[in-house]
């Protein structure tokens, strides 16, 4: 895998991310995949469109990966999908390889929480009933590098 943090319109390859962070020095690999749910907030969902300001999103993903790798002795890979996804398709995939499990879980969890707070991505849900809605989110703020 060329890059370990990226945005893509192609189907996410969870297994490739896991392989990319593997190492003979690791005893633990924690991973997370976010998928499109059939029901959200009581509405039947048909698909979700992911809009993204790609250049900034890729920089933020790289910063989150670097922050996780500074904080834990981990190797992290993360990919976020864009475009219209059907129910069950993966929107985000994260893999964190570490010496030990506590660090692997912590690093993986950190990455998904940071993505939700600071990566410029927006979801529009398309309902079975025909209408759609942009979901509410987290306001962005300047961060000190």
């Amino acid at each position, binding site marked *: 895998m060329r890059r370990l943090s990226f945005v893509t319109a192609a189907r996410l390859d969870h297994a490739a991310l896991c392989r990319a962070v593997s190492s003979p020095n690791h005893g633990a690999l924690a991973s997370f995949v*976010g998928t499109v749910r059939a029901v959200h907030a009581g509405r039947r969902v048909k698909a979700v469109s*992911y*809009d*993204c*300001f790609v*250049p*900034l*999103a890729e*920089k933020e993903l790289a910063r989150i990966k670097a922050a996780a790798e500074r904080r834990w002795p981990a190797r992290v890979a993360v990919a*976020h999908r864009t475009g219209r996804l059907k129910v069950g398709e993966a*929107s*985000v995939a994260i893999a964190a390889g570490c010496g030990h499990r506590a660090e692997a879980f912590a690093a993986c969890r950190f990455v*998904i929480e940071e*993505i*939700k*707070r*600071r*990566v*410029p*991505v*927006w*979801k*529009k849900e398309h309902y079975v009933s025909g209408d759609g809605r*942009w*979901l*509410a*989110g*987290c*306001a*962005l*703020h*300047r*961060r000190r*590098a």
Partner: protein
Amino acid sequence: MKRKIELYGRLRDAGLGSSVSVDLPENATARQALAVLKSAFGAKASLLQGCALATDEAVLASGDALPAGRLALLPPVCGG
């Protein structure tokens, strides 16, 4: 000077397309640009609540001068 501001997320549904072009004073700050954008959005100005201006490198603070290069208006995010 004219600056093009890219629109994302719910802002794409404002009927303005995927970007707006606004006239800004030289060395305008993000705060000034947001005020001008508010007029441009007219009746849809409430869509700007919680939005931030950003370059392709970073989100801008309200007192930051707009740098050269791409500028985008970003609603609250909900990735993952």
